[in-house]
């Protein structure tokens, strides 16, 4: 017993020592950090299920950093260096990527992740080391509740769920809907819950929820169950890879009703849904066909740099970096605490709308509804309507 207790204490001591050393390491470089490049860490899913998100967020962030550097940098000529870590779409890799960016690369701030589950896994690390983290597109409500160093530049799921529920009820005249959620994703579960709540509040009925797990490829059994209920519309709240297969298998089963999703549908692999994408709708952060000059300038610059149309994830990552640059400019330092306070006071115009942090470090922004179409082997998102937070 005694031996064990002693060993436990030794272990604790070693751990404390380790943490102390790690903390010193982070501080000791402080002098150098005030003059050289400003390191901004981006962790993203460059491979794995969420690879489309990772690619888009990296490109959006790169474009913003390049523009800031071309315009003379920050704090009297310091350039932004964007360091990118791949988390392979895995939550555990996300948290170790952020640990590396914070402790080894001494990033002044972190941009990422898109998927809520991976942000929830990594945000506590940023919070512990007091390095501000801005997520471009994690819409799950709990994300910014992790701590006061965590920010986001997108709307939250309770609002997204409200937008989708209203659109289905008012515009599509749906009265009975089914909800299909990905039980492994915080984003999907949160969005599904919010849709159920909002749609019921509007006076509609929701059939018994059905779920699947990320990576599943055969949804015929759950879809058949939904079909038997004869809903007017189906919500599929997961991400693009599964959504592509879900719409296809639903149509194969003769289900012709509208299928709706959230911003998680935005990703290149969605195009594998092919003709089945007809009669599907999503809620989104921005629409590339918005005539606003700030949007059009961004679309033009992105197209020139990467040779493709920016999606909403790219636009949000671009905004996240711009918000960070704005905050560094106002804080006049890259010190974590000062940067946090400057971020909390953000009030700038972004590509995805006006960005002003509320008390929960979220942005209150309108959402757009887009119709998804499949033209010549590619997915197009066609603007339908804008819905503002009430």
């Amino acid at each position, binding site marked *: 017993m005694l031996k064990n207790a002693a060993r436990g204490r030794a272990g604790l001591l070693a751990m404390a020592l380790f943490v102390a050393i790690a903390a010193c390491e982070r501080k000791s470089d402080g002098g150098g950090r005030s003059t050289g490049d400003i390191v901004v860490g981006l962790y993203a899913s460059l*491979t794995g299920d969420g690879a489309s998100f990772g690619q888009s967020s990296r490109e959006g962030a790169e474009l913003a950093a390049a523009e800031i550097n071309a315009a003379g940098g920050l704090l009297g000529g310091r350039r932004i260096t964007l360091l990118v870590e791949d988390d392979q779409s895995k939550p555990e890799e996300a948290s170790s990527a952020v640990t590396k960016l914070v402790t080894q690369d001494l990033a002044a701030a972190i941009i990422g992740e898109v998927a809520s589950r991976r942000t929830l896994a990594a945000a506590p690390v940023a919070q512990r080391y007091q390095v501000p983290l801005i997520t471009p597109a994690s819409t799950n409500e709990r994300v910014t509740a992790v701590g006061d160093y965590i920010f986001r530049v997108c709307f939250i799921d309770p609002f997204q769920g409200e937008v989708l529920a209203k659109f289905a009820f008012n515009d599509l005249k749906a009265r009975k809907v089914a909800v299909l959620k990905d039980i492994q994703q915080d984003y999907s579960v949160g969005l599904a819950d919010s849709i159920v709540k909002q749609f019921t509040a509007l006076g509609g009925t929701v059939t018994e929820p059905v779920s699947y797990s990320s990576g599943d490829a055969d949804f015929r*059994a759950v879809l058949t169950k939904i079909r038997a209920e004869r809903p007017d519309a189906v919500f599929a709240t997961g991400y693009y890879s599964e959504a592509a297969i879900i719409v296809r298998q639903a149509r194969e*089963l003769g289900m012709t009703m509208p299928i709706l999703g959230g911003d998680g549908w935005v990703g290149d692999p969605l195009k*594998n849904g092919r003709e089945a994408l007809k009669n599907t709708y999503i809620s989104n952060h921005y629409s590339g066909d918005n005539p606003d000059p700030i949007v059009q300038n961004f679309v033009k610059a992105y197209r020139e740099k990467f040779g493709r149309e920016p999606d909403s994830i790219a636009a949000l990552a671009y905004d996240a970096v711009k918000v960070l640059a704005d905050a560094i400019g106002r804080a006049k330092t890259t010190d974590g605490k000062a940067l946090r306070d400057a971020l909390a006071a953000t009030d700038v115009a972004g590509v995805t709308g006006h960005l002003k942090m509320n008390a929960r470090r979220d942005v209150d922004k309108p959402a757009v509804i887009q119709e998804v179409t499949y033209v010549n082997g590619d997915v197009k998102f066609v603007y339908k309507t804008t819905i503002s937070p009430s």
Partner: protein
Amino acid sequence: MDTVLQQVINGLSLGAIYALIALGYTMVYGVLRLINFAHGDVYMLGAFAGYFLATALDLDRHPSVLGTIVVTMGAMAVCAGVGIVIERFAYRPVRHHSRLASLITAIGVSLLLEYGGQVVFGASPRFFPQMIRSETYTIAGAQVTNQSLLVIAVAVVVMFGLEFVVHRTRIGKAMRATSYNLNVAKLMGINTDRVIAFTFALGSALAAVGGVMVALAIPRIDPLMGLMTGLKAFVAAVLGGIGNIPGAMIGGMLIGLMETGISATAYSTYRDAVAFAVLIVILLVRPSGILGTPVTEKV
């Protein structure tokens, strides 16, 4: 009523997938008493071989039945080669060691293929080209696609083909002799190394057929796709009686129906757990499986 029928069809088309893979498992076990855990990963390699071939032939834009046959044959050839290499360099060196050694080697090969696959193919899922134009038929209110029908048909054909090879051909006789007693077979002039290599080549080619057929019906492929599917096919093989060819077919279909049945209830997320619960129950109640005959262990 049409919902029940639809779920039965869903279950059968899912079950056919497990059956196709279980056939390969069961054959290798039948001859070698080796549980080839890498079988599911050879199935993944088959799907990827098919993916690259189909992309090279641009079948997505020009679907054709002939192209599909070419792709399937190509994937079979690739996997047969892989099977021979695996047997030669991973299993043969430990063949005369304990049963446990080859089991662990098989798990090692499986992990090598999975994570090697992530390095070579990338971790991102890919979508298989649509080699055959999708058609949906309606039977008594239930929908079924031509691709699902094809998977079921191929599974049945493969089962009968395998039965024929094992029970009606010279090489099949040699396989059965090797399975009965390797050393005596060798004394009788059978080149057992060649018979075993052939068994692996055949088993792996079957896995390739499975990979391509599945990718046709469910177009998403990734380097870890063989993991869960392979395990469930293994459960199917044990359920039907491992080593028994029609047993693998029945086991696969039962697992498919069971999974679909679970998905159709409110407990859809327990789907995977049920397959393994079945494995535990069958091992407790009837370890030899549905069609298997109890054997006494050779001492």
